[in-house]
Every structure is written in structure tokens, then in C-alpha cells.
């Protein structure tokens, strides 16, 4: 059934269709309407699960870990400061192997106070061991939530997942979304059935002390299962395609890359803009392609390494900066695609932060810059902030 709605409402419907059993969320712009919509659904009796009020995001995550231990399917929503507040519990959720799914309407980290779209908050959580999936549009948000449960709850994975929608850019934009019907979703997504859970007839201690002689093995298991999740993600994406007619490439999507001279790699809502600009430039004879990174964690290194043989120049657009060397996705890409034999020329474009609009004109400028790099055979500067008020890049 097609309905026009924001990505926030799409996320709320996704949670409802996935028959989530426990929801605990604390409001924060631009995520608040997700919690409000879920609360409304709960009051109207449309929600299968329980909606529990908590006093902070940290409490929300703690509550969900407990609920997940009992065998409930759990869900929450947050952004920037809230995500940072639950940081400690994100590590806990991974270590405890709880398949919690969380939607993050990514937003800038304060101060200065800024409520608009950015990706620094989720980039800061790469190390927690959560799977991270980025969405290009509202439909993908809904679909990814449903797919995330199937991936996360698989016994070979059992890791939490965060579904990222760009704050305001997707969360507050109305687009047409096809709501799948409940029976089809029930068919696709089985009930959460963990191997071990809290049982009053067989009491155990969960998450207790482990001495140095065994701790690393636990971490190694998580690393192994995160690697194994890659296969599962691609599998679930194909299954989803068969059932609902929509696929997203699983980990990475190569768009217009076949005979491309240069490609731009990026994640989130800007992918849509990039695809549009890429098509328009192709019509004018410029061979530019787009690499959509859907999964940042697990890092699809093998997929990205294909770029070594595909193109000589790769640009990476980041809505974040990690104050080391470049933005989050740039760091990951370099890590993923470079081998001891080297790799393509690569340049980072940092922009669109704190809700600054990244327009098709900016995108075109980036592609032209990459084509210039290909012609000259070298990168002028590794990291370019665009657009910036001092005239760097092109200021619209």
C-alpha cells in the first residue's frame, strides 16, 4: 500500500511490521516523531509490543538489553547527543550479543548547538561492534529495519544493528513509501528465538566476569561473527528482493561504475543526489559512477577492493570528520581498498555537515574535480572541505 510519509514514520511502521515486543525510547530532535508515532500506535492498539517510558537514552538501551535477554525483540530510536549518552551501553549490547535494532536520525554533535543532519554521531560509534546500515531514501529505511532483524537475530550473527537515516534530510522529508502487508512480513521474519535466554526455572548469570585467560576469545568470536554477517546481509537482501521486489545490493551498490573514469563513494541520502547527477553527466559524455556504501559495519572490504581494478580515481564524500585524517567513510575506504600493492588515487570531500545543504551543483563540482585528477594523474590535496566560506571548493 503506497502512502506518502516521512522517513521517521516509515521507521515507526517498520518497527510495527516487524512485531517488535519492547520499545524504550527517549525523545530527541529529529527522531522524536518516531517515538511519538510508536506511542500513538501503542495507544490505538496497532502496536504488537510494549512501549516503555524511560528517563534517558542510556536507560533506554539498558532496558532493551535486559528485555532482549528475556527473549524479546527490541527497538529504540535516537540521535547525536542521545546516541552519545548511550555509548557505554552500545558496547554492552555487543558484548552481550543482543540483536537490538536501533534507528538513528543522524545529527550533528554539539556544541555549538545544531539539530540538523550530519553523520558525526554514527561515525563516532563505529568501534562499538554494532552493524551500521545507511539509507538512501524513506523506503529503504523501512525495508532496512525489517531486514536488520532478520540479519541480527540469526544465530550465526547475534549482533545489534543501527539503521542510519540522515537527520531532517530524510527524517522530515515526505516521500511515497510502499508499506508491505503484515502477512508478508510475518512470512519473511520469523519470531525471535535465541539459543540462550533468561529462564526462571534454570537461573544463570549473564555477562559475568571473565579473566584475561579467556577474554580475548570472546572478542575474537565477535570479530568472526561480524565477518560472517557479511554473507548473511547479502543473503537477506536477496531474499527480501524475492519477497517484496526491492533490493539494495546488500553491502555495496555500484551504480554507473562499469566503464567509469572516476567514482564517488558515499553513504546516506546524498547517494540519491549523486545518482541523479551521475546520470545527467553521463548524458553529456562524462563517465562518472557512484559507489553506494550501504553497510559501513561490517566493512565490505572485499567488495570495495574491486574498485582497484575498476577505476583509477576514487572520491569519497563525508558528512563527518574524525580529526585524524579525513572523514569517517574516507578512513574506512582507505582501510578497505588499499592492499600492500597500493590502490587507486583517492580524495576526500568533507561537506554537508550540521545541516548544510549539499546540492547537485556541489556534486557536479566534485565529479569535475575527480575528472581533473584523473587527467593530471595526481591528487592536489587529500582532503577538501566543501563548500567552505573561505572560498575553498565552490561556495554556492
Amino acid at each position, binding site marked *: 500500500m503506497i502512502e*506518502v510519509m516521512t522517513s521517521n514514520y516509515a521507521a515507526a511502521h517498520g518497527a510495527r511490521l516487524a512485531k517488535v515486543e519492547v520499545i524504550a525510547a527517549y525523545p530527541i530532535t529529529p527522531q522524536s516523531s518516531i517515538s511519538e508515532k510508536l506511542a500513538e500506535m501503542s495507544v490505538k492498539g496497532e502496536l504488537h509490543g510494549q512501549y516503555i517510558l524511560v528517563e534517558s537514552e542510556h536507560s533506554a538501551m539498558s532496558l532493551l538489553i535486559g528485555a532482549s535477554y528475556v527473549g524479546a525483540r527490541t527497538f529504540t530510536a535516537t540521535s547525536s547527543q542521545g546516541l552519545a549518552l548511550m555509548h557505554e551501553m552500545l558496547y554492552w549490547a555487543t558484548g552481550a550479543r543482543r540483536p537490538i535494532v536501533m534507528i538513528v536520525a543522524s545529527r550533528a554533535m554539539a556544541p555549538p548547538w545544531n539539530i540538523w543532519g550530519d553523520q558525526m554521531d554514527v561515525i563516532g560509534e563505529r568501534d562499538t561492534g554494532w552493524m551500521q546500515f545507511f539509507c538512501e531514501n524513506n523506503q529503504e529505511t523501512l525495508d532496512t529495519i525489517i531486514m536488520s532483524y532478520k540479519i541480527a537475530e540469526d544465530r550465526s550473527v547475534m549482533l545489534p544493528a543501527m539503521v542510519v537515516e540522515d537527520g531532517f534530510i530524510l527524517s522530515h*522529508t515526505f*516521500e*511515497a513509501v510502499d508499506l508491505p502487508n503484515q502477512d508478508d512480513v510475518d512470512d519473511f521474519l520469523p519470531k525471535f528465538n535465541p539459543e540462550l535466554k533468561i529462564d526462571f526455572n534454570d537461573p544463570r548469570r549473564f555477562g559475568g566476569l571473565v579473566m584475561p585467560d579467556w577474554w580475548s576469545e570472546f572478542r575474537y568470536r565477535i570479530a568472526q561473527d561480524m565477518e560472517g554477517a557479511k554473507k548473511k546481509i547479502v543473503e537477506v537482501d536477496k531474499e527480501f528482493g524475492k519477497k517484496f521486489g526491492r533490493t539494495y545490493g546488500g553491502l555495496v551498490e555500484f551504480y554507473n561504475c562499469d566503464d567509469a573514469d572516476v567514482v564517488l563513494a558515499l553513504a546516506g541520502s546524498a547517494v540519491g*543526489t549523486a545518482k541523479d547527477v551521475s546520470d545527467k553527466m553521463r548524458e553529456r559524455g562524462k563517465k562518472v559512477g557512484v559507489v553506494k556504501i550501504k553497510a559501513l559495519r561490517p566493512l565490505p572490504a572485499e567488495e570495495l577492493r574491486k574498485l582497484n581494478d575498476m577505476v583509477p580515481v576514487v572520491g569519497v564524500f563525508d558528512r563527518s570528520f574524525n580529526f585524524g585524517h579525513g572523514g569517517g567513510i574516507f578512513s574506512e575506504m582507505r582501510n578497505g581498498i588499499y592492499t600492500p600493492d597500493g590502490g587507486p588515487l583517492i580524495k576526500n570531500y568533507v561537506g554537508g555537515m550540521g545541516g548544510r545543504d549539499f546540492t547537485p551543483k556541489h556534486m557536479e563540482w566534485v565529479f569535475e574535480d575527480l575528472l581533473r585528477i584523473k587527467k593530471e594523474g595526481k591528487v592536489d590535496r587529500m582532503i577538501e572541505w566543501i563548500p567552505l566560506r573561505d572560498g575553498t571548493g565552490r561556495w554556492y
Partner: protein
Amino acid sequence: MHGRGGQGAVVASEMLARAAVKDGMHASAFPFFGVERRGCPVTAFCRIDDKPIRIHAGIYEPDYVIVLDPGLMTLVDVFQGLKPDGKILINTTRTREELAIKGPNKVVTVDATGIALKRGLGSETAPIVNTAIIGAFVKMFPKISIDSLLESVREAAPVKKEENASAAKDAYEITKEV
């Protein structure tokens, strides 16, 4: 769409998107992501296309500019970026000359305030003009049918669904493209 906080510009953009989708097109509607307050200038955008819309960025060269409150014209350059063949729709009882609108663009006016008050939408000091003005817009943009618009108004209006739909219909009927 330029209005003031509380006049319903954002909801109007949603209604247009809904109507466009009902008529088989693709649409994407969003507010200018600024701090929203009553009385503060608010801009809402809507992209409508026959093909799927993938762009996620602001609109800088509109084909149409809708002004819900002509008082804004002294504060904000509401026509910035308007294409040379773009059209303007203003909620007013004055003429183009009286409003001193320069340039080649066609201007259509409709007394959305009058219609809103007649239908009891909002109050004298703060009339809700959004549904009336999009009713007028659909006359200028026939790719969206008035029936789809009325259905969308009924779906998305938070209160007084029938009065809002009537306001849209009234505006649609009296608007003349000049």
C-alpha cells in the same frame, strides 16, 4: 512556498506531495530545515516529477513560488532563483502593480485569506490559508487533479477536514490564470 510559522505551509507541501502521488507522479516534500516558531518566516518545498526523485537537496531554482503572506515580501526575497518562465501565486486582494512585483513572471492572485475566514479556518488574526492556496495552485498546475487534492486535504488536515477541503475547492473555482 513561503509563509509564516502556523499558517500551514509545511502541511500544504505534504498535501501537494500526496495529491501528486495519487495522480501517478513522484513527489518529495520538505520544510526549510530551520528553527520553526509561530510568526517566523517558513519555507516549504515540493518536488514533483514523472520519474522517481532521488535528489536530497534544497530547491534553488523553483518553477513556481507560492506566497501565503505578502507581508513576507519585504523581509525575504521570495522570488530568488525563480526561473524566467516560472509562475507566482500570491494570497492577496491587491494587484500585481500594487504589490510592485517586477520581472517577466506571470502572477496569479487569490484571496485565500477571505476564503479561509469564510470557511472558519483559523481566526481573523491568524487565518489558516494553506488549503485555499493549494486549491488555487492546482488550477495553475493541472497535472494534479482537484479530486486528488481534495482527498489529500482530507487525509492530512489535522482538524476541520471538510471545511479545509471546501476552502481548497472554492479557491480552485475562482482562480483564473492571467
